[in-house]
């Protein structure tokens, strides 16, 4: 049986190998700050809404008990100022297209003797690329008219409007295509990149799609 030292040595190596390609998004601090600001706004909104609701309940109780001669209203109704609804500034929707890739290999997997960092296959439609650690990743490129309702937004610098889903270790990334920007799909839709969840998805996105507007 291997000793604990043998085992932990292999374990350390395994952990290091398994996480070698993992790097956080470069703008992580900014993303956290943005979430922090949103959370603080929600916190402040609740701080205003809860006392206002309490006042409304108090005034309701005061009205309910007004016919009782012994009833003394504990609070008086207070008019809660309404804020005017704000109209968001018009934002041009993000739209993307797949980059023109050259055929470097017919099979869908990465050829062992490939010299190019990225190539494409016709069947299944997709592209492969080498990571910095010489790991080959295949990305299937597909199309969807709509994205799933469960898709979550992806925060990738310079690539707004992306969404992603995860099923059994397979990541699907949805990039919007605006109507009129794609000849095959004039009504617009979504380019779908399907890739292993272990693969560097940000690299896959940056290599395969580019903003169209």
């Amino acid at each position, binding site marked *: 049986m291997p000793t604990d030292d043998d*085992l932990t040595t292999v374990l350390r190596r395994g952990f*290091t190998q*398994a996480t070698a390609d993992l790097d*956080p*998004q470069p703008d992580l601090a900014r993303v956290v700050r943005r979430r922090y600001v949103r*959370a603080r706004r929600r916190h402040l909104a609740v701080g205003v809404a809860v006392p206002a609701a309490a006042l409304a309940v108090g005034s309701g109780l005061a009205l309910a008990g007004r016919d009782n001669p012994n009833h003394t209203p504990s609070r008086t109704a207070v008019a809660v100022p309404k804020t005017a609804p704000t109209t968001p500034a018009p934002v041009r929707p993000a739209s993307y297209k797949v980059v023109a890739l050259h055929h470097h290999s017919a099979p869908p*997997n990465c050829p*062992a003797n490939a010299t190019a960092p990225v190539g494409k296959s016709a069947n299944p439609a997709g592209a492969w690329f080498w990571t910095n650690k010489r790991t080959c990743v295949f990305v299937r490129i597909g199309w969807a008219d709509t994205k799933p309702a469960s898709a979550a937004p992806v925060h990738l610098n310079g690539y707004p409007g992306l969404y992603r889903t995860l*099923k*059994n270790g397979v990541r699907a990334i949805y990039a919007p295509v605006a109507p009129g920007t794609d000849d095959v799909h004039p009504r617009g839709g979504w380019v779908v990149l399907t890739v292993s969840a272990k693969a560097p998805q940000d690299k896959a996105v940056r290599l395969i799609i580019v903003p169209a507007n």
Partner: protein
Amino acid sequence: MDMPGSDFDEFVRDCSPGLLRTAYLLTGDRGHAEDVVQAALLRVARRWRRIRGEPAPYARRAVVNLAKNHWRDRFRRPHESTAAVEPVYASPETDVLLQQVLLPAVMDLPVRQRAVLVLRYFQDLSVEQTADALGCSPGTVKSQTHHALTKLREALGDPADVKENDHAN
């Protein structure tokens, strides 16, 4: 709740790679690991003034707790059907033993035992620091480590395979 200053950005830049890798080893999924790290850093940002002196242990504890929650929630959600697409993911330098035997065996461990191994042998924390991160006693850390290594030893089987594979690389 004041906005953390530039020292927070510096902390994120220095610590996020380690936190992300730890979260990945605990959850087994890159997307979930990113979510866990963001949520943990958000907790750090909320308490930045109070923990400014020593934010790393707090962040590490948040990552471990959130990853444990993720792991528990995994079994409450309905099972999703297998996707038709199975992407090719092969490495010329793949260590077959590590990728196909050891790491899956680590992922099969109970979440607490996995956390103990990751914190001790990936983050290189002491028994006491690991106990602090997991909110348990040092004795529990030692026993969990022992149980985890025993299970891994069983999964690995013949030690000769380990040695042979080590030399092959």
